[in-house]
């Protein structure tokens, strides 16, 4: 019997980032969402999910993710920068 191995949190984050850096934003969104299910309080996943949404032009969703990032970690300057960048859109 073949055993299906579920990707762990680290795998999902790495896969998400791989897709993000290759401009495959929809795939990245999918992986980061799965990662968040395993660790719902991870500011970094929220941030990268925000980037993937921004990349795919889902501006409202991106803003929401950057806001969540800051709720969890208010020192993430990059999230503030991206929120500012998206403010006019």
């Amino acid at each position, binding site marked *: 019997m073949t055993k299906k191995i579920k990707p762990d949190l680290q795998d999902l984050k790495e896969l998400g*980032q791989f897709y*993000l*850096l*290759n*401009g*495959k*934003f*929809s795939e990245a969104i999918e992986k980061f969402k799965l990662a968040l299910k395993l660790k719902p309080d991870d500011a970094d996943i929220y941030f*990268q999910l925000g*980037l993937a949404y*921004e*990349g*795919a*032009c889902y*501006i*409202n969703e991106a803003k929401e993710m950057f806001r969540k990032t800051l709720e969890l970690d208010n020192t993430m300057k*990059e999230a503030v920068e991206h929120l500012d960048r998206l403010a006019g*859109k």
Partner: protein
Amino acid sequence: MAKKFAVIGLGRFGSAVARALVEKGFEVMVVDIDENEVSGLSELATQSLVLDATDEKGLKDAGVADVETAIVSVGQKIDVSILVTLILKELGVKEVVVKAVNSLHGTILKRIGADRVIFPEREMALRLAESFVSPKIFDYIELSPTHSVIEIAAPKTFFGKTLKELTLRESQKVNVIAIKKKIPIITEKGVPDFKEEVNIAPGADDEIAEGDILVLLGRYENLEKIGRM
């Protein structure tokens, strides 16, 4: 020598225009009947005058005739804007741009010689409305009552296709003026980010990718169709 402008009426619109012109390095003369409005800009402007703009002699003495372009923005005072426009044209100002509050006002201004009539509120409202109709439309410029330029997120059905394959010009009568691409990068701090690359006048073999923003020119109804895709 820098082009000379006069901005008459320093409400929110007039003062914003004056500031923008100063920032661009032009010589700007500002005129308003209200001393407080003028004093807010007196340090920036080349010349600032507290003056009733319907006072022809006052405007003449101030040297308004020497400016290339005068922008008239006297708020809701239709009679004043008409008078000022007439005076400016009489004085020989080459280009008179006037802010109108409604269509009738606009028509009158054109008849009496305004070179350009603008409806900032209407233009802003249209742009705002567009952004609500489709959250994927990022910008909208009306070129004429029939043609516009829009900035729009590429629809899913465009991904992976070249402009030649999409045949937008033939099938939709829409021209792709530019493609804005987000190139993912890793910053010096090791954080992912994007760099924007703009491909102006893209070629037939250029391919659309997910996340691309297209700058399109075409008839309003054709652009709207793409916006709904």
